[in-house]
């Protein structure tokens, strides 16, 4: 490592229509670390992840992953094709895990993993297949490679989603509330897979409400509210002893809903 963080975002500003959803978000994620984003509904967590992945185009701000960087403010001047190319290139640096998995329903677990490497990246099918099988085993789905998504439980689907994000060999994996659509019982298996990945050195940015996961796995926790990062720091500090009143109130409500 050369001291520079693997992923860096600076000054992200994004509006939908009249409403400004991100008001200058900065983020630095060193290689091999886990950053957890927490914050109330509508605070912009999903939007941040989507900007990192260029699924959303911010009005201003810079995102760099490894040595690919995009200056979003400058994009519009580059022309449609060049802008698209830049975004696609950035997108290839990260994998994304959605809350509602969004697996391709008409393809088996294995085929879901192969779309990226084989169809898009054009890697040899046999090689990609071997790697995909390893990934499925890693998320605990050995033997289920031919199942369709509809034949898998929610937790299994989400784990296929994680494997699919890894299959494109991203530098960073982005998770958007990967467990919040799951039955409580199935949450554990997904979090376990994520912890294993983190321990294996995968760089991750995770939006989640699983505070215990953040405490145990995160190197850094960021609290987002109203489109700005209100507080950031080690998990132990932000969660156990938040400096800001807003953070404290949010955590209290989360831990004791009633």
């Amino acid at each position, binding site marked *: 490592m050369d001291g520079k963080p693997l992923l860096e975002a600076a000054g992200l500003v994004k509006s939908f229509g009249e409403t400004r959803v991100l008001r200058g978000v900065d983020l630095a994620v060193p290689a091999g670390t886990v950053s957890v984003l927490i914050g109330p509904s509508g605070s912009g967590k999903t939007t941040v992840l989507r900007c990192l*992945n260029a*699924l959303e185009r911010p009005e201003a701000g810079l995102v760099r992953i490894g040595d690919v960087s995009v200056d979003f403010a400058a994009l519009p001047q580059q022309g449609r094709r060049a802008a698209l190319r830049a975004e*696609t290139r950035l*997108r*290839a640096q*990260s*994998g*994304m895990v*959605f809350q*509602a998995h*969004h*697996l*391709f*329903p*008409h393809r088996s677990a294995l085929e879901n993993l192969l*779309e*990226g490497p084989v*169809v*898009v*990246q054009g890697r040899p099918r046999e090689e990609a297949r071997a790697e995909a099988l390893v990934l499925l085993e890693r998320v605990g789905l050995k033997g289920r490679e031919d199942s*369709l*998504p*509809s034949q898998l439980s929610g937790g299994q689907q989400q784990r296929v989603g994680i494997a*699919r*994000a890894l*299959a*494109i060999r991203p530098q960073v994996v982005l998770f958007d509330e990967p467990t919040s659509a799951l039955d409580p019982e199935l949450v554990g298996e997904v979090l376990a897979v994520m912890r294993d990945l983190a321990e294996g050195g995968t760089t991750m940015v995770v939006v989640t409400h699983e505070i215990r996961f953040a405490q145990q796995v995160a190197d850094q926790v960021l609290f987002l509210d109203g489109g700005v990062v209100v507080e950031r720091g080690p998990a132990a500090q932000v969660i156990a002893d938040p400096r800001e009143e807003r953070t404290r109130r949010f955590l209290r409500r989360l831990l004791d809903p009633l």
Partner: protein
Amino acid sequence: MDWELLRTSAWPLLQGLVLGTIPLTALSFVLGLAIAVVVALMRLSPVKLVSGLGRVYVSAIRGTPLLVQLFIVFYALPSLGVTIDPWPSAIIAFSLNVGGYAAEVVRSAVLSVPRGQWEAAATVGMGYGTTLRRVVMPQAARLAVPPLSNTLISLVKDTSLASTVLVTEMFRVAQQIAAPTYQFFTLYGLAAVYYWVVCVVLSAVQDRLEGRLNRYVTA
């Protein structure tokens, strides 16, 4: 009912079916579907000009009788110096027609595929075309099959209009046999039976396809 006439007509009508109706239908439907996909995507385009063109196309095709479309391709284009042979004329007119109707079906089916699928495809690196081909269309197909099968089955019978541009298909054969004796009723009945058999086969294909495409639907 004139049984002797039925017996002697069975074979010529079958010829008309196999050499006229069926290839005409098959070719026009395949080409028409391709047109439909293009037009549907045009109508879904954010570029106003492109979606406007798509809209005009659909409106022109659905808005005028197939017979007139056939007339234009075959009888009016020559006055502009473009003379097209009967078979190509028929196929052009039928595919353009199918394209207009099927475009609406395809558009509505594409719209029914959740946005999440487009985004998931983007995150694994797919562009617009690849996403359509490998992710969206296979899912849109499920909803599109029953109405498209209506379009196809209508087409089978609409090919009888091909006789206006000198293509002889089954219905024309039936008319020709009926003419000297005025037994239109008998011959049309026989043609109806043939059409019906084709439709039963196509419906069976539709059912299997629907079953296949429903397989991966959750709940």
